[in-house]
């Protein structure tokens, strides 16, 4: 269990590295594959809650370090209405919330139905982007939701979802190598049938 958790943390860090090579697709409204979020979501469903929360903290903290913009510059007398960006640390809570959502279907995953978790990861990515956009709107005011924004969120979710079987495959391989059963219920059911 500890070995598996430790390797998933390394896997998440590797996802941060791989994310550097993921360009945005200008033709698809600057959508991209959110590999960090995907690895976290797929891993979250395989872990116990405390380990998931550790992963959420690491993921959220580094994601904010990756994305946070610098402070405002210029004279406040001229730029009286400065535009705020997302506060450092918000991603930790978002990652935590996403992880809890994924753990909500852990009983199904433990029955061996990983496909449902894979589908849910796409839905959760869409929710994650929606919440991020709503926070930006809340902080900056003036609600505007363009078709381009919706399409960007949609394409990002779909592109990311397409990679989830690969990530689950990798997790199954790691779990097998570590001797850690990530869906023991399925194993029990199989034994009962035999």
């Amino acid at each position, binding site marked *: 269990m500890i070995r598996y958790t430790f390797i998933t943390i390394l896997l998440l860090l590797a996802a*941060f*590295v791989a994310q*550097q*090579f993921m*360009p*945005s697709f*200008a033709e698809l*409204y*600057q959508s*991209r594959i*959110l590999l960090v979020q995907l690895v976290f979501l797929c891993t979250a469903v395989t872990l*116990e*809650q*405390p380990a998931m*929360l*550790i992963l*959420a*903290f690491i993921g*959220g*903290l*580094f994601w*904010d*370090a*990756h*994305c*946070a*913009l*610098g*402070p*405002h*510059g*210029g*004279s406040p007398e*001229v*730029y009286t209405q*400065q*535009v705020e*960006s*997302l*506060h*450092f*640390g*918000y991603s*930790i*809570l978002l990652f*935590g919330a996403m992880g809890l959502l994924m753990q909500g279907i852990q009983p199904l995953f433990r029955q061996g139905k990983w496909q449902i978790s894979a589908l849910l990861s796409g839905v959760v990515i869409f929710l994650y*982007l929606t919440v*991020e*956009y709503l926070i*930006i*709107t809340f902080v*900056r005011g*003036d609600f*505007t*939701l*363009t078709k*381009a*924004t919706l399409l*960007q969120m949609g394409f*990002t979710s779909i592109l990311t979802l397409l990679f989830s079987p690969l990530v689950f495959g990798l997790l199954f391989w790691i779990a097998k190598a570590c001797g850690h059963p990530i869906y023991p219920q399925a194993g029990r059911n199989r034994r009962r049938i035999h």
Partner: protein
Amino acid sequence: MKPLNLIALLFFLGGSVWAFTRSDRAVCEVQDVYFSAMSPFLKSGSKLEAKAHAFRQETRRSKELEVELQTVRSNMDRLAIIESRYRELENENEQLRHALNYKKANHFDLVATQVIRRQPTTWWQTVDIDAGEESGIGTQLAVLSSEGLVGKVDRIYKDQNRSSVLLLTDEKCQVSARVEGSPEVGILSGQRGRFDGNPLLRLRFLSTDAALHAGQKVFTTGRGGIFQPNILLGTIDSVEKGALDSEALVRPSVNFADLGTVFVVLTADP
């Protein structure tokens, strides 16, 4: 809830509060650590993206390029004529300055850089350039292209000689702007949720009776302490009159979809 889960949740919330209460300086330190660790991968990622961009450029249809070449040629001829006229005016201006004992004309001290990475985050309009601290670049410096203002330096990657530029098309990049041929002054910034190559910018806080028309040029005022005056920002596309103030949509002068070489303004003569 199991006691272990509860303890983990409390630690998690405590960690979140810790992160939330970090000052800007502490956040920069966390980012420095993160980007230092990512440094070798960032360089490879940038190279890969630059290659992919070059490949996409090469595969553009030849017909399109032919048309572009034709346009460039005609523009070059036109510019040659303008340049000769400009030289005449410059000489005349120099003579007049001497005569009036004026100061030497303002000039910028520029660093030429290449865009090596586009839009590395989901929501912010930023690009990375291949120059940083080693080239004397700091944050909040204006970035130009031959077409006009591109944005400002938002972040320096420590010990990596690269920086992140917040583009003019981002909502957070605000520029004090004036409209040519009118007394109108406002704040220009990008618009949220615009992901096409060249989105329109929004010029806010204009007077209610702003007499503006499409095609008027918009320049920086030089107020606010970041951008030097008289840098071209774009041209007025349309004007929306409001009850308290007016707003104008501005077409940027820079082609943000095809940024290559950009210049960071290190200093400008007063």
